[in-house]
């Protein structure tokens, strides 16, 4: 007897259930490939370039190849049954697309950039950025469906990145980003060193300081409310404002206290940047340390005491190892936050990659902005993934013990 049922029947027959995510992403990619400028060519650094659509930049063949790969993925995604093999094939299609993209740039450079003009440069167009972004989303989606380990995904992305970098270094001299880099290679490495140094110092200082504060809060209960309120307060103050507010007293200090000036304390420069970074970093560290130490199950502590562990033994051998993953989570948040905030610190003369961003913005040289912004993004993602993986590792260890 047929049932006219308003509710979705989960019957024995599998229905057509394509992966709508991949289909949507695929459609958007196709729209981007054919609807947005693929590359732009400019006569020199300052003038804005002219955009070229895909059939001029990559020829009809190139556009067709890209579309074919995307279509293949979409066909696989609309297969009535979701099999692992189909997902693997879709994954491969995305990876192939990402790997072929730099070669497309080479072709575009060969066809569109006049080799007799050393100033002429090739810009990566919106279609490229959008397709790259969507392909990464697709990889994330497929990774989740395939439940691939993060480690493999990271390796894969590093591999793709290496191909891009290799192409850029060897064959893509006309690429604006590459030219921008070649002009200030030394500066670039210097900026990365500065950026990393600021982040490392700020995070290490705040780890030591923050854990101390957290321990004090545990001992002196009264400190807790006020302490968190104060740290929350600082976290709310926008970074630009905090950097700004620190300038004045430090400038005064260096002008009026010779000793401070000898130490290198100045209104402008790394001092206010470091202080602000440490202040911002304290909250996540203190909060996570505190929570981590509190979160250890009372049963476990009870058992430890019952077995005859001394207070200090219990602290170092039970509490700390169990708290470590949550603690690392705090370090991860702090690290990612500090990488971003250090970029802002460039405004008050602290150097780092932010300097490229703000100089680039000042000179309307977008490729210089990219030269600063892209590494910051990569650093933030790497820190996030790296510390996240470490925490996961520790957690797994804790689960087995």
């Amino acid at each position, binding site marked *: 007897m047929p049932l006219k049922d308003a509710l*979705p029947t989960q019957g024995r027959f599998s229905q057509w259930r394509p*992966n*709508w*995510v991949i289909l*949507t992403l695929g459609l958007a990619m196709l729209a981007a490939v054919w609807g947005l400028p693929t590359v732009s060519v400019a006569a020199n650094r300052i003038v804005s370039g002219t955009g070229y659509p895909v059939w001029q930049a990559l020829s009809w063949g190139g556009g067709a190849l890209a579309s074919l790969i995307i279509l293949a993925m979409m066909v696989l995604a609309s297969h009535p049954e979701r099999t692992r093999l189909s997902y693997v094939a879709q994954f491969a299609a995305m990876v192939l697309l990402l790997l072929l993209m730099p070669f497309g740039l080479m072709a575009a450079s060969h066809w569109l950039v006049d080799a007799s003009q050393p100033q002429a440069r090739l810009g990566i167009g*919106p279609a490229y*950025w959008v397709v790259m972004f969507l392909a990464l*989303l697709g990889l*994330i*989606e497929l990774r*989740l*469906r395939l439940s691939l380990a993060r480690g493999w995904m990271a390796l894969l992305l590093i591999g793709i990145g290496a191909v891009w970098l290799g192409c850029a270094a060897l064959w893509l001299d006309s690429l604006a980003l590459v030219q921008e880099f070649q002009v200030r290679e030394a500066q670039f490495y210097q900026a990365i060193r500065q950026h990393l140094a600021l982040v490392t110092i700020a995070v290490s200082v705040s780890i030591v300081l923050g854990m101390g504060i957290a321990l004090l809060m545990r001992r002196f209960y009264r400190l807790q409310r006020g302490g968190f309120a104060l740290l929350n*307060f600082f976290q*709310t*103050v*926008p*970074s*630009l*404002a*905090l*950097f*700004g*507010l620190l*300038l*004045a007293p430090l*400038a005064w200090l260096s002008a009026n206290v010779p000793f401070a000036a000898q130490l290198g304390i100045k*209104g*402008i420069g790394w001092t206010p940047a470091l202080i602000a970074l440490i202040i911002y970093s304290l909250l996540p560290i203190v909060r996570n340390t505190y929570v981590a130490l509190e979160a250890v199950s009372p049963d476990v502590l009870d058992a430890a005491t019952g077995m005859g562990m001394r207070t200090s033994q219990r602290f170092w051998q039970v509490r700390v190892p169990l708290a470590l993953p949550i603690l690392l989570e705090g370090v991860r*948040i702090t690290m*990612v936050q500090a*990488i*971003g*905030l250090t*970029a*802002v610190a460039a*405004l*008050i*003369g602290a150097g780092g990659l*932010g300097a490229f*961003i*703000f100089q*680039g*913005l*000042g000179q*309307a040289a*977008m*490729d210089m*902005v*990219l030269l*600063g*912004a892209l590494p*910051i*993004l990569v650093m*933030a*993602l790497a820190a*996030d993934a790296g510390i996240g993986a470490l925490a996961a590792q520790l957690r797994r260890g804790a689960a087995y013990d």
Partner: protein
Amino acid sequence: MSRKPQPSLSTYHPAQLLVPVIWVVLLALAVVAMPATEAVFRWLAPDARQVIYQRADFITLLGRHLFVVGVAALFTVSVGLLAGVAVTRQWGRDFLPLATQVASMGQTFPPVAVLALAVPALGFGTLPIIVALVLYGLLPIVRNTIAGLKDVDLATISSARGMGMTDGQILRQVELPLAAPVILAGVRTSITINIATAALGSTVGASNLGDPIIAGIINTNMAYVVQGALVIALLALSVDSFFEVLQRRLRSHTA
């Protein structure tokens, strides 16, 4: 169901509003009375030709700042809520894993980098700032909407359906009210970040409260820097403390 010690129920004291009101009064005072404080700032920047930022008065700057953040918030809240609701419905389930993953990765992208990447794509001016703020501010709201809706006890939803509520009624009367505290926390994060990021917008051609700071740094005029920083900080604290009160009121119902 765990039964925790119960907080006093829904006790709404006007006194709770005290903190935000103090911040707002301080903000208003700072904005209106800034020109009258020349003597104080003269002391900060004794050599400067001008000590009070004059290119635009602070009321205008504050207005522009609020406009940018407000317009962005309007979009982020409506779009973010819709997206969060959509991916938790039966028909949008396909998008849930990706949306969750991307929204949780959002905090990893530094706001500066996002802003910097928005300029090449969108150009200088107020519009790109708003677009960047919308894109960036969406993520915490989507993340918290998803988290809030997923946290609603399945038994509650099941019993609501069993009582004969329609899907729309369940969403409006049960799921959204129960997820509200978590969603509100997301909105708070989003707007707080956007107030700070909008200030950075004055480096990409939007005029707002970031202007005096940037101008002060360029001209090494400490007075400008402090004036701008003070007003932004007060703005952020005012808005944040309002959210604090709102959250406390929402939380007092459901324990």
